[in-house]
């Protein structure tokens, strides 16, 4: 007799080529644009080195436990977010649906930020850089007024890139150059996610490692710039008084939470492609620590460059004053230099005070320049681009910088798209007729068409709205239900056994305590504090209005009611999925309970699924 050929027990699920790919994908997903442009800003405004204390406490009690939970869940259940939560309990399927909705919303607007990065990238090949010069006005006697009053970098960002409207209700027109860049960005995303993790696994080697190379180059360059040490001292000088402000703790908790990209469903999807016997505990700790270290590592070149920029602005201010004084008093050239400026000023103030007052000198204070803190898109596209103009060889620095930003954002996009892709793939796993390429193509095409709204004149206001409302509160709610669901519905004892089976070690007391009590409590406190803070003042936004009296300061405008309704919808839609699905299942069970021939759902466990 010849034996039947051995068919290996495969469920046809794709898997990672090696463990390094998986870790790199998780790190790439967690490390995103926020590590570069939000963390240094928070460090700066919350007392420098002192901010690291609440940051690491939040990491220990909120970040690492939640990360471990998600990775263990995905690895054990081997399904995407919707399938995983349906398996835990049909009533909790709404948690999976909620995170799927959030992933969809975030994918839409996140790629538009990448569009802006790509636009700057393709404009970096010119000499001189287009954001370094102001265009002339019609009769060529001076510069364009809007540009002259603000600055050339501001003009390039607000007018040449966004072509921003003064109000969110004025939609403006579609900007064709942004549409081209958006199409290119979605094409790149399609190229990389065309066959799911098969292709993203290869792409992640580049997109996750390259930013570290560029950060190192910028670190070396940044430290050699004049004024870099001032910036670094300013950043890291601890001011322990700020710790008394609860706002600092809230910012630390929310920064850790959003930085690790929790509750998107992408991490569950990544972990579900792992072999079951994988040490998810070590993975979680590794990813969380690498993410935080990257934030710290990134803040050094950022602040060196900001210190350099502040010093240059300070020197320019001094030079302007010196020229006017020398012109006024007819002193010989080079008699007043930066170093003896203060002594000269005090001398002249005592001898000729009216003349000095008549000159209307601007007071030059280095601290004031260092204090101008910016975060978000303002940091990358306004402040940093201005600093790059001042460096020798600006084109190369600009190109490197924007490729780095693009890679950072792209690796986060992979996680977002996986969070959308994997559950959809599972719903259609029975009908394998259509290949994966078509599904990813459809996702990218539909997202591109919807994201065209963000290329309107008012697009950047809408992106701010999505960022503030769709990617903040719902994530906290979903994460809270995740922890509660695993600990109290799936039961922590069962989960401990599963994790023990997967890692081969008994579950540490630290995990038990944080999962059971500390993390849900922390999440609840953070959620309530967040909502209360948002409700305290009517939601407003800074608008770029050239006709405003205080121009170039931004005008604070309040959102019109229809926009506020959309904000509530964006924040509420993912949250409301949780009770809605539970209700739906309740109704279905009620109908089904009238039919007694049904078998009750079996007890699920990690080992059972894979033995």
């Amino acid at each position: 007799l010849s034996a039947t050929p051995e068919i290996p027990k495969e469920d046809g699920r794709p898997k990672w080529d090696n463990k390094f790919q998986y870790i790199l994908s998780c790190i790439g997903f967690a490390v995103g644009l926020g590590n570069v442009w939000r963390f240094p800003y928070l460090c700066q405004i919350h007392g420098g080195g002192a901010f690291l204390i609440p940051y690491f406490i939040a990491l220990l009690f909120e970040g690492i436990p939640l990360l471990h939970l998600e990775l263990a869940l995905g690895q054990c259940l081997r399904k995407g977010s919707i399938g995983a939560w349906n398996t835990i309990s049909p009533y909790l399927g709404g948690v999976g649906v909620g995170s799927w909705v959030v992933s969809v919303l975030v994918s839409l607007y996140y790629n538009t930020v990448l569009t802006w990065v790509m636009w700057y990238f393709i404009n970096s090949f010119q000499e001189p850089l287009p954001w370094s010069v102001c265009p002339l006005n019609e009769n060529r006697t001076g510069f364009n007024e809007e540009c002259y009053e603000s600055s050339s970098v501001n003009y390039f960002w607000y007018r040449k890139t966004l072509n921003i409207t003064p109000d969110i209700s004025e939609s403006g027109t579609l900007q064709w150059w942004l549409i081209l860049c958006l199409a290119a960005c979605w094409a790149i995303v399609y190229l990389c996610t065309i066959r799911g993790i098969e292709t993203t696994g290869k792409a992640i080697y580049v997109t996750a490692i390259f930013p570290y190379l560029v950060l190192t180059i910028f670190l070396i360059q940044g430290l050699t710039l004049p004024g870099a040490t001032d910036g670094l001292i300013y950043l890291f000088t601890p001011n322990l008084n700020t710790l008394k402000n609860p706002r600092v703790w809230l910012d630390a908790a929310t920064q850790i939470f959003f930085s690790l990209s929790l509750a998107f469903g992408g991490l569950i999807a990544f972990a579900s492609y792992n072999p079951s016997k994988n040490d998810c505990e070590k993975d979680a700790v590794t990813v969380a620590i690498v993410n935080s270290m990257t934030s710290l590592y990134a803040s050094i070149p950022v602040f060196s460059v900001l210190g350099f920029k502040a010093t240059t602005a300070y020197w320019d201010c001094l030079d302007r004053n010196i020229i006017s004084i020398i012109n006024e008093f007819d002193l010989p050239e080079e008699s007043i230099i930066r170093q003896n400026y203060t002594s000269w000023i005090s001398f002249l103030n005592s001898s000729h005070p009216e003349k000095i007052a008549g000159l209307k000198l601007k007071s030059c204070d280095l601290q004031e320049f260092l204090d101008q803190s910016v975060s978000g898109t303002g940091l990358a596209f306004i402040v940093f681009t201005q600093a790059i103009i001042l460096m020798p060889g600006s084109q190369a620095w600009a190109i490197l910088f924007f490729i780095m930003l693009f890679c950072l954002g792209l690796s986060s996009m992979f996680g977002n798209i996986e969070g959308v892709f994997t559950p959809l793939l599972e719903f259609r796993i029975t009908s394998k007729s259509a290949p994966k390429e078509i599904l990813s193509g459809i996702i990218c095409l539909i997202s591109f068409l919807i994201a065209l709204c963000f290329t309107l004149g008012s697009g950047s206001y809408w992106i701010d709205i999505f960022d503030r409302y769709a990617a903040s509160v719902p994530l906290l709610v979903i994460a809270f239900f995740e922890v509660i669901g695993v600990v109290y519905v799936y039961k922590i004892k069962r989960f401990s056994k599963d994790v023990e089976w997967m890692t081969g070690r008994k579950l540490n007391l630290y995990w038990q305590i944080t999962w059971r009590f500390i993390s849900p409590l922390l999440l609840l406190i953070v959620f309530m504090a967040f909502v209360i803070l948002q409700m305290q003042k009517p939601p407003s936004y800074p608008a770029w209005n050239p006709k405003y009296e205080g121009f170039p300061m931004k005008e604070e405008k309040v959102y019109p009611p229809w926009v506020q309704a959309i904000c509530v919808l964006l924040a509420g839609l993912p949250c409301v999925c949780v009770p809605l699905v539970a209700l739906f299942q309740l109704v279905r069970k009620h109908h089904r309970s009238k039919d007694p021939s049904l078998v009750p759902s079996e007890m699920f466990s990690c080992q059972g699924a894979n033995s």
Partner: protein
Amino acid sequence: YAWDANEEYLFKAMVAFAMRRYSSKSTTQISNVLLCNVTDRVSFWFVVTDSSKNVTTVPGSEVEAAIRMNRNRINSAFLLSDKTLQFLKITSTLSPPVEPSTPVWLIVFGVVLCLIVAGIVFLIFSGIQKHKKKNKESTERENLEEKVEVTLENGIPCEALDLKPGHINGVFGADDERFTSL
């Protein structure tokens, strides 16, 4: 370089040159240009007199226009620029930035897009190839399994024996009575 009488002489010569070019009169001499109030800052006032008319000064607007026309010559004579050699009340006309016929960014964008499209086409084609190969392989494997089953049928596996009910052969006596008891 230090500002001395020679530089002043050069300056007077340049102004005279400018006046000559502007009004295309060749009567302006260096002696027509007068400097006054020279300070250490190196700033001074100057006037241009007209020797043909009785020692009157040329109107300021003419002088301004002449200087504006020859500004870059004057600048290069002193190795200075518009910022370092300032004529009060004469604003410089700015040159517009160079604009190439096709914007550079469009070219770069074209290159990037071509690369992306090439990548997508390549991946889709390799996916179709892999799919075809898998289909061929799976049909081959199905044929192999049929052959295997054929050999099994000839060999009468044990499970098949269990399924078929056994026939008791009546030739061999089943009755115990037929045999002699021990």
